[in-house]
Every structure is written in C-alpha cells, then in structure tokens.
C-alpha cells in the first residue's frame, strides 16, 4: 500500500502529510513532483496544503495546470481515492474534480486556529472510522476557505450525502459564529460524485498526536488506509 503526496512549488504541508502517514499510521508514502506525468504504483493520492504558485491569481488556479494533474484526474476517474487538504481542496475545485469554489474568508483575514467540525457522512472511504455526528477538533489555516456553490449544487450535495464535514460549535450546532470563513451552509469538506474524492479545508494531518493538541484527524487517515486494505 502506497500513498502518493503531490508536491507543487509552494506546497508546504506535504511533509506533514508524509509524517502523519509514515510515523503515526505506519503507511508507506512518497512524494510525487508536480512535473511528473505518472503517479506510479500509488494506491491513493493526497494533494497537500500550502500556497502552490504563491496562490497567485487565485488559490489553486495555476497548480491545476501542472502536468501531474492529468494523471490525478485519470486516477480519480478510475475510482482511485484522492484527498485534497486546504490548498489541495482548492486545486481539486479549480480542476473540476469537486464542485464549487473557495473564496476569501468572509472575515477578510487569514484564520489560524482550532475549529470544530461535525462528521456528516460516516460511510465514505475517508470517514467510515468516525461516527456520524461526531464532533472533531481540527486546526484550520487559510485565507481563502469560504466554500461557495450555487443553490442547486448545494442541495444536491446535501441530498446525496456529499457534505462530509460541517463547522459546528462546542455543542455540535452549525451556527454562523462557528463558521470561520462564511462557507455556504457551514460546509468544511465535500465528496465528489463518485465518493472517491474528498476535499476539506481543516488540516487532519495536524491533529494526529497528543503533543499537537488533538488526535481527531487520525480517523480520516485510518479510514483511508482501511478502505485501501479492503480493496486490496
């Protein structure tokens, strides 16, 4: 089992994902440079956080044209598991692998803090190790994390169970105050139509050790690993 982590110029959470997979979950992981045209023998792909191409133009807008993205699209099209975190989520939206877009936080400021999200779908390949309704504490660190889509798309995401995570308060309620960036319907993470592509703004790879203040992110990687093991 091997997870490919794509490194774009400006990625800065690639190593964090690597350490989470290798050191915490004991899973083989390796980096794939954005100029590669093949993912090799990867069983799953992670697009990590950071500022690919300095977020010039718009977060993720340039990275989607990287040579490796054709291989990622093909991998996703054939049912492979693709996870985009933060900037990776933005790239997946820009590349059309996920619906909607991520815009400047409604606070108009970068937000670096720990938030709570509720697991809305606990049956996906990325979330089945969680309970539905479980509240997770995960760090966020983004300036452009407001999730937007038209109403019809949002309705479709809701009815198809493709809202994976939603920002909530300590009591597990999705309130405007608990929404850190003005995301439509408090959406923090969405699944693609096939259920095999997930994008989310919070950083599960930063919540995998007690030392870091939370281990709530482990479940996401464990889900991924169990899904791969089941498929193998």
């Amino acid at each position: 089992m091997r997870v490919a982590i794509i490194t774009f110029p400006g990625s800065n959470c690639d190593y964090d994902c690597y350490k989470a997979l290798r050191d915490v979950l004991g899973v083989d992981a390796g980096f794939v440079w954005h100029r590669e045209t093949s993912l090799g023998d990867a069983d799953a792909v992670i697009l990590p956080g950071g500022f690919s191409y300095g977020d010039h133009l718009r977060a993720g807008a340039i990275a989607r044209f990287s040579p490796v993205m054709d291989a990622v699209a093909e991998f996703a099209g054939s049912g492979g598991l693709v996870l985009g975190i933060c900037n990776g989520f933005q790239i997946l939206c820009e590349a059309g692998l996920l619906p909607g877009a991520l815009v400047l936080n409604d606070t108009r400021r970068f937000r670096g803090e720990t938030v709570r999200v509720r697991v809305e779908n606990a049956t996906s390949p990325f979330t089945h190790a969680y309970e539905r309704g479980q509240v997770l504490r995960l760090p966020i660190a983004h300036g452009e994390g407001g999730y937007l889509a038209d109403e019809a798309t949002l309705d479709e995401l809701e009815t198809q169970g493709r809202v994976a995570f939603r920002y909530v308060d300590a009591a597990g309620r999705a309130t405007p105050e608990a929404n850190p960036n003005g995301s439509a319907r408090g959406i923090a993470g969405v699944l693609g139509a096939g259920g095999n592509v997930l994008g989310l703004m919070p950083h599960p790879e930063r919540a995998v050790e007690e030392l870091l203040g939370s281990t709530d992110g482990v479940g996401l990687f464990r889900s991924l690993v169990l899904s791969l093991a089941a498929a193998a």
Partner: protein
Amino acid sequence: MSEAGASMAADPRDAALAEENGRGRHPAAFGAGTPPEPRPGDPEVTPELVAAHGLSEDEYRLILDLVGRVPTYTELGLFSALWSEHCGYKNSKPLLRTLPTEAPWVLQGPGENAGVIDIGDGIAAAFKIESHNHPSAIEPYEGAATGVGGILRDVFTMGARPVALLDALRFGPLESARVRYLFEGVVRGIGDYGNCVGVPNIGGEVHFDETYEGNPLVNAMAIGLMKAEHLIRGEAAGPGNPIIAVGARTGRDGIHGATFASEELSEEAERSRPQVQVGDPFTEKLLLEASLELIRSGHIVGIQDMGAAGLASSSTEMAARSGTGVDIDVSRVPVREPGMTPYEILLSESQERMLVVALAGRQDEVRAILERWELEAVVIGRVTDDGLYRVREGERVVAELPGEALVHGCPTYTREGVESEEVRRARSWTPADPSSRALSRERAEAALLRLLGHPTIASKAWVYRQFDSTVRTNTALEPGGDAGVIRVRGTRRALAATTDCNGGYCWLRPRTGAMIAVAEAARNLACVGARPRAVTNNLNFGNPTRPEIYFQMSEAVAGMAEACRAFETPVVSGNVSLYNESPRGAIHPTPVIGMVGVLEDVSHLVRSAFQAPGDRLVLLGVSRDELGGSLHVRLEGEGLVGEPPAVDLAGERALQEALLALAREGLVRSAHDCSEGGLAVCLAESAVADREAPLGVDVELPAGVPDDAALFGETQGRAVVSCHAPACARVLEVAEAYGVPAAEIGSVGAAGRFVLGAADGRALVDLRIGEVADAWHEAIPRIMAGG
C-alpha cells in the same frame, strides 16, 4: 529561466573570467592595476554628493587615503552603503564588543548570517532577530513582509531549515487611525509572508505606547534547525570559484535602503516609499528548498542573502570572511529593467535574491538543482586571491577597492553619554505614603479591568490568529503562553523561544531595563520548562549622536552584558536599529531580547493556563512595594515615572533553576511569570487563558505591601505556579532547596469568580470570571472592529 541557467556553463566569458581572475591579474598590493575611470553618465563626485551619501567629511578623507584617488560614483555608493550605520555598526560596534558571545554550546557567534548553538543529539539551532522598522513605518504591509523574508534567508543560508518565527512589535496607541492602519498592515504582512513560506509563528510580543506613534518597531526573529555537520557560512573561499546570483531579478527597488534605515524618519519619509522593497514569499519558498538542497549537495562553499545593501554587501562580506577578493561583472546580473547602472545594480535591495559561491567545475550540478526549483541562476563573477573588490560593467572596470577596508574600515565612534534631565526628573517620583494607599474594592476592580483591557496586556489572539502556528506539525505550545515551544523530531527534546523588552523601564534606567528584558525572557523560558541557552538581540534606539541617546545605548548594553553573563546566555546574533525618531522625538530605548532555550524532554512542558479547580497556587519570589515604571501608575495618569523595579540577577537565576526542577519533576500544572500589571494580571491571565472554560481564583495577597503594589506592582523575580493539593508541600520544598522564597497564596476556584483578598481579610477584587475573561480577550478585537 532555464535559458539563463544554461548560460552558466556555456557562456565562453565564463572561461575567460576564470582564467583572468584565477591567478590574480593584480598580484601586487592595491593600486597596481589600472584605476577605474569615471563612467560616462555618472554624476561627478563633489562634496555635496558625498554629504548626500551620508558620509562625514572625516569619513570621506579616510576614503581618499584608503583609495589614493577620488572614488568613482559607483565606489562612493559602495562606501555609503557599507559604511552606513546599518551595515557598518559605526556607533554600536565598540559597545557590542562588551557582550558575552561564548559558551561551550555556541557553534557560531555574531558576525555571520545567524548565530548557531548546539542543542544536543547532534542538532544545531540557528537563529537571529532583525528589524524592519523604517520600511514598516512607511509601507507597513511590505515593510513587515520583507522583514520576515530577510530573517528567514539569514537562517536558511546557515544550512538550517526555518522551523519557527516570532515577532516583537511596538506601535503607538490604537486610538489613532494611522496606528490601526500600521498595526493592521504589519500583522497582515507578517502573516501573509510566513504563512505562505510555511513557517509556524510561535510567539513574540506587542506593546502600545505613545513613544512609538511615529516610529513603530517591527523586529522579526527566525529559528532554524539542522544537523550540526550541515552548518555552512557566508564565505567566498577558493580563488577561481564562480560567484552565482540566484533567485529574483534585480530591480530599482530599495536602492540605499541601508542608508535610509540609518536616518531619522521625517515628514518627507512618505516620499521614500519607493525605497521600500516588495516581497514574494513564493519565490522565497523555492529559494529555501533550493538553498538547503544546494548546501546538502556539497557543490557550494558559501551562500548569503542579498539583504541590506544587496549585492554590494553580500559579495564584500563573503570575500572579507575568507580573506579573498572578488571580480564581478554587473552586466551579467539579471535585471528587471533595461538601463540600470552599476551603482543601481550593486545597491538594489530587491528581495528574494541570494549570492552563491560554488566549487569550480560544479556549475552544471548547481544549475540542475536550481532549475528544478524554477530559479534563475547566472555566474556573475569569480573569487580572486588579490583581496580586491573589483566590479566591471562588461569590459569597463567601474570600481576597484580594497575589500577589507570596505567591510571593516568604517571608523567607529565611542561617544560621550549624558543622562537626560527629563529622565532624572521623571525618576524622582515616589508613591504616596503607604498608609494612604488602601484601595476600595470598586477602585481595585476598575484598575484591574483597565489593565486587562490595555492592548499591551490584553490577549494578542487577534494578532496571532492571522498567523499559521501549526504548520510543520511540531508546535507543542502555540502563541499566547510564556514562550512558544516546538519539538525537535527524532529526539525527546524541544526548543522554546520568546522575545521581551519593556521600553518604559529602559527609558527610566536603561541598565536596569535591559537586565529586566534578559531576566524576563529567561523567566518565560523557565516557566515552560526550558533552560535558557542563548540570546539574539535587537537594539532599537534613537539618534546615537545625541548624548542622551548614546547614554541609553551604553547603559543598556552594559546591563544586557551583565545579565547574559549571570544566566550563561551568550549573545550569538543580533541587529542594531538606530535613528528611530520621528518629529516627536526618539523612541524609548528598546533593546529587544530574543532568547532560545531547550527542554531536555518535551513531556516536561508546562503551560500557563490553570488546569482544574482545587489546584493550589504558589507564588515564587517576593512582592515588594515597587510601583515605579508600572503600567498601573501610568494608567492612573501619573505618567512614566519612578524607579523601575529592582533586579536581583542571582535571585532570578535561582528562580529559573527552581522552575526547571519543578517542571522536570512534573510537580506543577501551570506556571506563569509576573510582569506588566503585576500579580493580579498574572493570576487573571492564567485563569482566563482558555476562553471557553475560564477558571475562578481565590487568593489572599501577600502581607506587608500596600494594596496597589500588592495587586499591580511589577516586582521582578516572581512567578505563580499551580499544583495538585497533595504536591504543594513538595513544591514549597523544591523552592526552598533553590533558595527561592515561596508561599501558598490560594487555589483555583470552582465558583466562577475571581477573588483577591488583602492579607487583613478585606475583599479587594471579587469579579465574575466571565467579566475578567471578556476584558482580556475582547479588548483588541473591539478596538479593531470599532475603528
């Protein structure tokens, strides 16, 4: 870009240059070659032009002696930049020599891009603090952003991967719209740059005071980690080795920034906006990765940031460290616009550029690494063995100077310092007679809430929540505590860091104030469980040619030296920022201390927040009747007056050792040092640190000290720790073993109230904890939202 990269090996001029320089065309002493002729189009060097370059008549005479002829315009520019205060340290060097710089764990002291210490297990930490005060006063966003960029480059050019950032910031009062604009811009600039590069911001401090209204301070500190064997220096060794310009192209921005930073800010300073550089953190991230890869590759001998005074200072400093010369052709430097003169190319401070000296014959390998990171790299010259700093523009020699004199020949000044009368008068204030200083509950509560709501004391979450503090997944203690802490992967250790300085104390008595800055930094580190190891300092002062300012400098450095010796925390790097003056006058002397410490085991980490009701509170140290220089007295309307708190360096050292022992033994559940706002503020901060679950406090204040001093006096050498009730006796025992006075003063309360009583039983403060939390947490957000 790959085109330019490819030219590195292919350009036949390379070979010619190497041949020319390799054996030293000018074997004799300086002056044996053909002196450079004035370049057509360059202005004539006149006394007015010399004065406009910030050089005194005496300094110019010295230059004439050194050069033996009238310098060319290009040469004048070089001297102006390298002999500026910023590069030449001409008013501070004699003072800086008195600071302790050595310890067995120091691998690199001052004089390099950054200082380096051994932190154990073969790991070294490189760190430095640097100011970007003047640019930030003019253009806060870019000024602060490029400050972060520069300090990161200083760290990774030592071979270390940057792992943490901190910032020491000073602004005027937030009531001013202009100050809010500066504050907002600086914070955003620091955030956008550091966040993009992916370096967690783990701490620092922000003070607000009228003295900084026209001249804010933006001091950025970076820390990097490396295997000790990867340490590399900014050297241009090995005649014949190619000198390579890497990174962004050179433009006309920031020309004479070093000279600009060496003058007072004037009303016209706004017009200097074009001198402020523009940062590109994306290129920085590529430079960072490429530089570390280059250093590990073994293909290069030296690397340095093109920082203040750009190509001129980086190339001359690298040569001076190796005792070599350099020969540079500026026509080969990649530029952003046509028609740039040698003068402009040498002095440009365009950001995200590095100078690399490679091993001869390794150009292809170097090029391959840089190309992979999409960076431009061009051979612009060679190292020579003649000690000369020679610059060509194609065939024409436009500068040829003795390199050593350019870098080290700048005259230094030791001046006469005289204490100002105004300070003496202010210091003569004494508090009223103790018998008249009992406080009613109403007054004590109002004074406490006022202190907690003062932006200098209030929570700085509004600031650090705009920073990414958790990237790299090593942050064990985020901003908001006594110090930031990051674990060191592959070891049990962790690194702690803090910045500290109370400019008010330093104004009243600079020697004492600087000692307190060192003591507070060390105390902060000890509170989190880290042993203080070394210091980087940022000396922010006014115009040194004024006797009262020079007095502040010499006294502050003396105090700093004494405290650093007492704590065995040598100064390994730093920065001097002078001429911090606006039309309203000089800033308070602000010698910021950045201190780094080591936790042998990250599991010993202690936080500042109280953990649970019922825990006992122990005050380490004694409270005295000291109100001079306190924020309480200032908010009472008395002004910055009185004698600042006394410092007992031996007592501070004992307190540090006691705190470290308590952390090691796992006896304490929290520790927080007493500083601005005194014991009452210290207790409140620990009680409400967790916004969602603040805890109450029930404390009886020490006897024998008037109410105002007992609550808000800023006596040094104190910290409050909390512990499980059964551990309390052992905590007191440990304190006694280290000779630290200690007393149980109360407990963490369950009732949700913040209660402080006088020793005679009077209730002085009895507030709902929610009110205390609100005052502290919401002060800055409210001001910034309302503004």
